[in-house]
């Protein structure tokens, strides 16, 4: 079973990509390399943000109750 990348390694990728972009742009800020490097930073930053959101969504009780609403832990009494 495939496992999602751990957010930590994504954070490292973001950090690394920023350094690389700064290097690529120090030679020629108008070059394709520079622009592509910052685009990679954007892509990784977005991925890191989505990964953080997914972590927020992973409450074990909420996930269990989604599939088993009739169990004692999950019953809600609205009336």
């Amino acid at each position, binding site marked *: 079973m*495939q*496992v*999602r*990348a751990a957010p930590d390694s*994504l*954070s490292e990728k*973001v*950090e*690394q990509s*920023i*350094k690389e*972009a*700064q290097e690529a*742009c120090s030679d020629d800020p108008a*070059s*394709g*390399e*520079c*622009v*592509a*490097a*910052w*685009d*990679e*930073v*954007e*892509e990784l*930053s*977005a*991925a*890191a*943000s*989505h*990964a*953080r959101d997914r972590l927020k969504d992973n409450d074990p009780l909420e996930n269990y109750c989604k599939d088993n609403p009739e169990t004692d832990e999950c019953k809600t009494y609205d009336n």
Partner: protein
Amino acid sequence: MRRLTSVFGGAAEPPKGGNPDSNTLISDMTTVICLDDYHSLDRTGRKEKGVTALDPRANDFDLMYEQVKALKSGIAVDKPIYNHVSGLLDPPELIKPPKILVIEGLHPMFDERVRDLLDFSIYLDISNEVKFAWKIQRDMAERGHSLESIKASIEARKPDFDAFIDPQKQYADAVIEVLPTQLIPDDNEGKVLRVRLIMKEGVEHFSPVYLFDEGSTVSWIPCGRKLTCSYPGIKFSYGPDTYFGHEVSVLEMDGQFDRLDELIYVESHLSNLSTKFYGEVTQQMLKHADFPGSNNGTGLFQTIVGLKIRDLYEQITASKTAAPLQATKA
């Protein structure tokens, strides 16, 4: 996207048992495809060529057109997966034709053939100041980022954005424009937003939302004797306009809701919402009170657009079932 798919009932989720990094979302009625899956160049490829993802050269529009056309005609496709974590193109996943297909991404309206397949299109137009504020909120928590790196990334991508992405908005049936508020002088926090829903006139199956009197120009502050609002309040305006040479109607909301009674009060004064019952917009907004934009025009207009799409879908399916009946009568 969650607000949009939620109008049809159920939450759209990634396909179970497949690639965990799939970008696709599936619910009973809808399938949402991320157009990054049609990248012809992966992250390494783009780096080598010195090209951004915004550049058409990084995307396979022929494949995009083929597959969207196939799905629209009821044929399943094996669609590639662009893995945003690894930056690689993963083996394809099977996509079955849904009742409602949503394609989202950087270039939904770029290719004319794909554009012509769309029954409805939306462009989310975020102004520069708001984009910068949102990216700061998103990225400052990430170590390695600073104000400078966030700014540099936006600026490096701006030429491609202006050349390839922004021009698509002229083709959209609805544009949601997000701007800084005009209610707070010298506001630099970017928390209160001014949002404009620009709706094209004359689009088949689409009747624009209006305030009070269709086709007239209206300015409305709902806060007063009947409704108390907290600072900075809410200001609506509505009126006809032209946008890239097209006739449009624009509904605008500046400010924030902070209570349920403000939301229902506003809903009761809007017309042509395509709701199925009084209070449906408010109910949808409350259902997703934890989503971003729930207290301003972004959440409100995305919810309204969802209802408009439902209306469009029902009209189109009704006309499809009516046609064969007429054929047999003759």
